[in-house]
């Protein structure tokens, strides 16, 4: 079982990401958005934790009604300089009120984690080959933030003391 960072800790990944042509089986699984939309009823009827992997150009309106029944949204980063996923996470948290796990998957590297966490991600599947221990340090690099974001709805000008 591979490891991920969740809530700033290195933990075993309890989720299985299944390909579109793979049998879903039992246990918590993450399926693609396309598969979820195609097999929605059957997947939700399983009665087990379900996660959906969304591309960075996802239109969340298509998922909005199902979000309360999903335990995890995995947002894909095809390449680490592609920043669309940051908006996806903020909208999930701030507009759609999603309380489940938001996981960054794909080209996920240490130096994005600070921004990702502020945007609403709480789990990070760091790219294989990179040290998770090293990546943990990213969360402590800044103690000061100017903006309102998913981690705090108040910009600094409402927090300055």
């Amino acid at each position, binding site marked *: 079982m591979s490891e991920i960072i969740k809530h700033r800790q290195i933990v075993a990944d309890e989720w299985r990401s299944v390909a579109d042509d793979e049998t879903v089986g039992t246990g918590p699984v993450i399926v693609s958005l396309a598969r979820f939309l195609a097999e929605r009823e059957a997947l939700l009827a399983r009665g087990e934790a379900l996660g959906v992997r969304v591309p960075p*150009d996802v239109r969340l309106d298509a998922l909005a009604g199902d979000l309360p029944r999903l335990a995890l949204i995995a947002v894909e980063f095809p390449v*680490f*300089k*592609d*920043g*669309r996923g*940051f*908006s996806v996470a*903020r909208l999930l948290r701030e*507009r759609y009120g999603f309380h489940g796990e938001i996981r960054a998957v794909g080209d996920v*590297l240490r*130096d*994005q984690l*600070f*921004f*990702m966490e*502020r*945007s609403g991600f709480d789990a990070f599947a760091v790219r294989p080959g990179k*040290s998770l221990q*090293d990546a943990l*340090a990213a969360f402590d*690099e*800044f*103690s*000061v*933030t*100017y*903006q*309102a*974001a998913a981690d705090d*709805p*108040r*910009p*600094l*000008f*409402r927090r*300055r003391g």
Partner: protein
Amino acid sequence: MYQYDHYDQTLVDQRVAQFRGQVRRYLAGELSDDEFRPLRLMNGLYLQTHAYMLRIAVPYGVLASRQLRMLAHIARTYDRGYGHFTTRQNIQFNWPELERVPDILADLASVQMHAIQTSGNCIRNVTSDPLAGVADDELEDPRPWCEIIRQWSTLHPEFSFLPRKFKIAVSASKQDRAAVQVHDIGLYLVRGADGEVGFRVLVGGGLGRTPMIGQTIREFLPKQHLLSYLEAILRVYNQEGRRDNLYKSRIKILVKALGAAEFGRRVEVEWAQIRDSALQLEPAEIERIRAFFAAPAYAADAAADASFDAHLAADAAFATWVRRNVAGHRVAGYRNVFVSLKPFGRPPGDISAGQMEALADLADRYAGGKVHSTFTQNLLLTDVRQADVYPLWQALAALDLATPTIGTLADIIACPGLDYCSLANAESISVAKSLHARFDELDYLYDLGDLRLNISGCMNSCAHQHVGAIGILGVDKSGEQWYQITLGGSSGNVASLGDVIGPSVRHEDVADTIARVLEVYLEQREPDEPFLDTYRRIGMAPFKARVYGVPAKGRAGKEAAAHV
């Protein structure tokens, strides 16, 4: 000017530590070149032809004297004794060693400076009017708004990996001196129907290889909604801007593809969701920031001085310099003094460590301890008592900082070009020198009047040649340096992009070509008509005919096509 509190200082200090770690990891092989590149760029560090280049932020062009002294220290300690002011009011050092960049940043942080977001696909240093706060045609000081934007944009969690770089400019005056219309977002402070001050919002301006003038998407934005509206624009851009092609990823391409009306509609839809959020600026915060920019206590008797007029009458060289390099001030008895970084035969925008230190002393003595950088690559001392202008001129002249050519053809705006930049196709500095050598008679320059000339070494257009009344663009032609010349550009209130005059010319023919263009202007202008107005009145044909001979169509068409 704005002063850091412990929040601002902590963030900058932590940024230094973070970058120190990133450099260490890169040098240790833990970060690949591709992984390190965006990290260093977000901290202003480029890899150029011969060395790294570090671009340091001068937020909206305001520098304290102690900051200028620190820049001098950096130039001496870590570089080759000089720095280069850019068209975005920043300063660049061309020779730092990677290993020492964290130390440079630590030195900068000690005087409340940084290099955050001076490059990379993020929100860049916000720019403004160099005469902000002292201009006699301004509605209010735009700098507090720039500072509010600076803080909002610094390490923004959602907008640090945009499709492409993103530039915002703010102007509050009748005359646009901030090139607002060629920025990704341009903000004009305006008065609304109810008398309240707010913003006219433009999007989609930009230069580079596909230059465009920004378009208004909102005629009036109440000021308290500034940040939510910016956030809405950036969110639409972050999600919908193209990421498949570097050359089509600026917001201008998205705005063009959707149309400004549709882009604006999408922004309004997004904004409706967040306009009443905690991003709304409260009067107390606006006032807190504004207080940092409060005007100094001006002396009531400053205008009583008679020496200024006496020196004007007695010293022709002084009077000449005042005419070109000194601007009016909204307070009687005060002046604003441009410090020329355009001595004949030198690279435009360069300044030595010794000049920086001496200028810092002059700023303390005569100008409230502040120096302002301009997008024309000069510096400006504001709030100078008219009685001090003469001794200040003498001191500047001794430092070779008083070339009396501000706003003339010799006030050339130029990028570093092929001498430094790995993106360049051609040299810029040597072209500037050839023009300085050719047009070195002050009387001729003054007769030409206001005339902006810009030289970029490639189509990335760092020197804004598209908006020069005369623009010169370096192009590579089978390994040789050629130059394409445009006429009629302007970044002012009636912004326009220059038109290509015809086939590009060789390096050694640039000065002759410009001379022919100027002949036409001098022959055809009406009394007191600036070059730009003459061009707009008579069009390209007479200039083209003089440069290429008549008829030039066949030859011009063929060669020009090669460079489209």
